[in-house]
């Protein structure tokens, strides 16, 4: 066996595992508390709310996962292109052809979105339906071929890591908790009559719906932070895999700082139109936090800070030169 220069980042793997473990803990705790509350109070109406929330949550989760490619394509206004659709498409196909051959993975569909923003994202529920979307802004930017290739390698890594599936499953608990809060809130508003009938069964206890609401809010908040953390780790993993695939970590670093520089410029696209796809963007469309330090913005963002990403890439570069 020849030696390998592609050592995995154990620290990153460990942190990612811990995050997913904590998400699992939150999930189990959430279910346990719900079962305990409902079991202790025998409340049929609350049980109904939980049941509906789980069903709707499942439907939403599975639906957005199953149609992730179509949803993303239409939200971004992107068109799937073949190599014959002009020079941009030919260039894109040429680069991705080689990268997929290098990585030994099936080639995803390629799409171009008409947008001046410099961005790229990958989506789709599996390798067959996955689609890689690139904006015209990115294709016509001052990124050279090496930098564009690095960006595409990063997106291909998202496909290879099945990040859409992982993030959908990870978000599931948050979706259910969020729905539960909403339903509990509405039933508080409109379900007053039903509750007074049952009050004799558990006299003096806090309204069950209120407890469910609080549990839902706490679960939602904690899982939200964990999902964002997981998302940042997945980005670092994709940076790493992409840089190792092309063997050019510095090209990715250069592309990152070029793209993030222009993302801070005033975009012409309506923010509301750009927001839903944010989690899968190469660089999120929102203005990033101030440099360094521990800030709330860092905690909430789907992508790691530019400094963190550049630091990892320079470590890989060093590793490749040895």
């Amino acid at each position, binding site marked *: 066996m020849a030696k390998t220069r592609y050592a*995995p980042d154990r620290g990153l793997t460990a942190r990612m595992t811990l995050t997913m473990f904590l998400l699992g803990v939150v999930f189990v705790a959430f279910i346990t508390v719900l079962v305990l509350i409902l079991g202790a109070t025998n409340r049929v109406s609350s049980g109904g709310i939980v049941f509906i929330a789980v069903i709707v949550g499942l439907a939403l989760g599975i639906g957005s996962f199953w149609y992730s490619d179509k949803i993303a394509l239409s939200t971004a206004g992107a068109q799937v292109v073949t190599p014959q659709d002009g020079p941009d498409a030919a260039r894109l196909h040429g680069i991705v*052809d080689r990268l997929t051959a*290098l990585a030994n993975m099936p080639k995803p569909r390629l799409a171009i979105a008409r947008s001046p923003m410099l961005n790229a994202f990958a989506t789709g529920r599996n390798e067959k339906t996955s689609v890689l979307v690139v904006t015209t802004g990115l294709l016509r930017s001052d990124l050279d071929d090496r930098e564009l290739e690095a960006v595409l390698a990063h997106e291909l890594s998202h496909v290879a*890591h099945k990040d859409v599936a992982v993030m959908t499953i990870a978000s599931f608990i948050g979706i259910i908790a969020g729905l539960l809060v909403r339903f509990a809130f509405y039933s508080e508003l409109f379900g007053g009559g039903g509750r007074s009938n049952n009050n004799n069964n558990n006299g003096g206890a806090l309204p069950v719906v209120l407890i469910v609401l609080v549990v839902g809010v706490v679960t939602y908040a904690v899982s939200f932070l964990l999902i964002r953390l997981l998302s940042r780790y997945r980005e670092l993993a994709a940076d790493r895999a992409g840089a190792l695939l092309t063997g050019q970590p510095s090209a990715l670093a250069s592309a990152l700082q070029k793209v993030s520089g222009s993302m801070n410029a005033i975009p012409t696209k309506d923010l509301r139109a750009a927001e839903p796809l944010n989690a899968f963007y190469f660089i999120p469309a929102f203005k990033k936090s101030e440099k360094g330090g521990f800030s709330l913005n860092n905690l909430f963002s789907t992508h790691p800070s530019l400094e963190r990403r550049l630091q990892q890439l320079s470590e890989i*570069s060093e590793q490749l030169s040895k």
Partner: protein
Amino acid sequence: MGFLDTILGRTKPAQPNLDELFALPTAAITLEAGMDLKPTGIGSVCFRATEGKAFGDIEKDVRELLSMGSDTGSVEVSTDTYGYTWLTCKHAPDDFEALVTDLHAVNSSLQAGGFGPQLLCTLVTFTSDTVHRLGIVYLYKQGTFYPFAPKAGQQRDNAVELQVRGAVGADLKIEPDLSRWFAVWGAPGL
């Protein structure tokens, strides 16, 4: 990718499969017998150079090895528009085995240096009176071959390619997924 790799967001770099290359001389005989396609004596190895000194050192070693080792052959290095490096070996058209041996030497040097995952493809070219140029491309990661017959104006002669697939199907492992038969326009020797 295993389940655990997916969960942890890791990619194991795809390692090349080098053994299949030695099926090429047999296929060359079949091509000449069946379709009158003769080797041009030009073959090349395409790889993605990584940044840093380590890769440069190995590349230099490979070049020295090739230019020293063979008296008849010569070696050239070029970079294409996609940023990939092509090491082109030229031999006498009738010395096809020496060409394949040289190409294999490039592969094993890169792999021994830990850069196996950087190998993209190997290309050997053929020609005949009717077919101007035909490339047989070897995909390292799949361990499969496919034909590439360019025509003028970035068109591919699919008829010839499919005919070649039929002709050498018994000698070479042909890539079954047609969508992986990507074009290598302007590759050395084509």
